[in-house]
């Protein structure tokens, strides 16, 4: 079983001090922060969870406890073979106006996760975080660490300055394609220079907003397909993490219909948008929509070929955590969603050992 979204948090952003470039070490050490000393210098989002976004039975007070709580409550309890680390606050580098500082913080996080988290547990595989507002710096970072044997994806927040298919980000796609890593967006970065996280203007309440925060991921899906990313980089996979899933068929139906009439606007797009999505886009499950009638949910998931498009993620240790042993999905889909699909996207992961008497999770 592969868990595609596991947050390796810290107790203080001071853990980055030994890992950050000296120029920006001073910023982090003495510069202004949005919270107390040790908080992370992101341009914070306007919506704050009224009861804290972390689970209340997990209260680590130091970095060793961040791991020991994770081991007890996730790794040893549910026994994933693979936990793909996605960081925590570091994703918010995307909100900073200063691209140099943002990239320095991202590099510091990447050095820290490789140096301190990966050695803790052989189930850990890392995402490297980039500052997408600095495409050249991000590309350099991807080339610096892309060949690390335990680095399996390049990660940025879904909150963004521009849609990710925009020409502005070409250096990032080029670098990902060169090193052969998927580019993933994870819910976050809705603030600072990413000033349009909600269409129509800022919503008011956290729960209301949390249901709508997936909006930019719709934009990214349309953008990467219409801008021909997968024609220029046919080896690329685009992973959408923690952005909900059931909106995808609706958007793809609309994109397909529009492209049929207006193909001439984007002559580089050669196939139906839904075909690019099928071959190049994957989505993590959590938080899986909770339908009153489970069959309604499953019908929508079938319409997007959920068995092949979805990858399990728990989002440990957040308030909307999905437990791996309680997934409301058709049983026959589980071998691929819980394991096989992620092994196809993250090619550095070992092939799954499958008993001879079952085809479950067998790779093509």
């Amino acid at each position, binding site marked *: 079983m592969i868990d595609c979204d596991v947050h390796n948090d810290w107790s203080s952003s001071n853990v980055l001090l030994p890992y950050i470039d000296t120029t920006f070490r001073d910023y982090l050490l003495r510069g202004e922060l949005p919270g107390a000393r040790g908080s992370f210098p992101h341009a914070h989002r306007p919506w704050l969870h009224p*009861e804290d976004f972390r*689970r*209340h*039975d*997990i209260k680590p007070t130091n970095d060793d406890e961040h791991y020991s709580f994770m081991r007890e409550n996730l790794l040893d309890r549910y026994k994933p073979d693979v936990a793909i680390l996605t960081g925590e606050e570091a994703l918010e580098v995307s909100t900073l106006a200063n691209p140099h500082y943002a990239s320095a913080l991202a590099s510091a996080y990447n050095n820290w996760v490789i140096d301190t988290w990966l050695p803790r547990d052989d189930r850990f595989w890392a995402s490297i975080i980039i500052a997408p507002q600095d495409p050249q710096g991000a590309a350099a970072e991807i080339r610096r660490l892309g060949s690390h044997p335990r680095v399996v994806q390049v990660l940025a927040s879904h909150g963004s300055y521009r849609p990710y298919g925009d020409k502005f980000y070409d250096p990032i796609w080029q670098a990902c394609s060169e090193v052969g890593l998927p580019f993933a967006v994870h819910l976050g970065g809705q603030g600072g220079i990413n000033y349009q996280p909600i269409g129509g203007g800022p919503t008011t309440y956290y729960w209301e907003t949390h249901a709508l925060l997936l909006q930019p991921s719709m934009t990214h899906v349309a953008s990467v397909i219409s801008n021909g990313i997968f024609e220029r980089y046919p080896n690329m996979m685009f992973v959408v993490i923690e952005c909900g899933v059931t909106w995808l068929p609706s958007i793809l139906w609309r994109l397909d219909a529009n492209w049929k009439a207006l193909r001439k606007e984007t002559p580089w797009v050669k196939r139906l948008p839904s075909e690019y999505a099928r071959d190049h886009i994957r989505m993590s499950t959590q938080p899986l929509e909770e339908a009153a009638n489970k069959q309604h949910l499953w019908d929508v998931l079938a319409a997007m070929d959920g068995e092949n498009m979805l990858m399990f993620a728990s989002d440990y240790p957040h*308030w*909307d*955590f999905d*437990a791996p042993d*309680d997934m409301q999905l058709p049983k026959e889909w589980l071998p691929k969603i819980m394991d096989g699909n992620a092994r196809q996207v993250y090619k550095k992961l070992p092939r799954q050992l499958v008993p001879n008497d079952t085809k479950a999770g067998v790779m093509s």
Partner: protein
Amino acid sequence: MSAMTDKRKHYAICKAADLPPGQRIIADLDGRSVGVFNVNGEYHALHNRCPHAAGTLCMGPVTGTTLPTEHGAREFVYGSEGHILRCAWHGWEFEIETGKCLIDAKVRAKTFKVSVENDQVVVHI
């Protein structure tokens, strides 16, 4: 039900003085995790397993909450202080005394009888 016919197992949890008002103890009772709460001097016990998604219900905050308002009034009336347990995982709210979930009374956390015997807090399962 009299003690003579009570076939439930009795588990002594702690001395009554060791569980003052506003406090809780989470105990493993033959493999079943149970939270015992002192709410204003009355003891209540809940299964530490949320009926929503099997989360660690009893490890969440004991708190009050905003009471429902009438006719869509956008106002905040805080109440039930000390009577509400928020599940540690997803934050669903439960009334400690009854185990009723605030968003749907049909969703009930399992409750257990609690008594005080010889100055010991005793849970009946």
